[in-house]
């Protein structure tokens, strides 16, 4: 069974903390993505990566950075967490071809207090 695993289901962090969200996929996919999901706004792309050490900004990259040191692992970093970054974060992976589906992790619900 294909799998995208996010390290935490729930996280509570304080304003100003540095936060790491980890994602691992076991499908040897080239593409990996981080989305943010908010009610009424759907999924918005934060960053994506199509290869090791490669990254591209999505639609809402401000306040976030990413790291991809190995093909199977894609990390989202909140350099200084703020309350407006309280959200559900979804990681996904896919093959390079655009006609293939994206596989999603179960999500990390982050609360910044």
């Amino acid at each position: 069974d294909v799998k995208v695993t996010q390290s935490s289901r729930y996280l509570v962090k304080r304003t100003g903390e540095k936060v790491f969200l980890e994602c691992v996929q076991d499908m040897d996919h080239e593409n990996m993505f981080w989305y943010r999901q908010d009610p009424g706004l759907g999924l918005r792309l934060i960053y994506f990566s199509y290869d090791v050490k490669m990254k591209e900004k999505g639609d809402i990259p401000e306040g976030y950075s990413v790291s991809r040191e190995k093909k199977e692992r894609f990390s989202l970093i909140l350099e200084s967490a703020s309350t407006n970054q309280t959200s559900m974060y979804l990681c996904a992976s896919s093959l390079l071809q655009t006609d293939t589906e994206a596989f999603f992790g179960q999500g990390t619900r982050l609360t910044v207090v």
Partner: protein
Amino acid sequence: AQSVTQLDSQVPVFEEAPVELRCNYSSSVSVYLFWYVQYPNQGLQLLLKYLSGSTLVESINGFEAEFNKSQTSFHLRKPSVHISDTAEYFCAVSAPNFGNEKLTFGTGTRLTIIP
């Protein structure tokens, strides 16, 4: 640029009744179209997709969607819903020539089945 519009944020339906979830898109190029489903407390999973060929596509659990190029729509339908269909449904579009990063999602429709 491409965009997806899901006009209905919530759709309540009685069990065994038919349902249609609406999706309209805009794009200056040809597109691939997807419906994803998110069951409570889970990530998204692919329900069905349209790439080319027959404009009517079906899923294994009885949903179908029809690509209508003239109306730029990809509505999702099911003739008889079950309690287990309670979920949030997302329509998405990608542009074949611009890489998977251009997968754009709608805002989602929450389908609630009333017993």
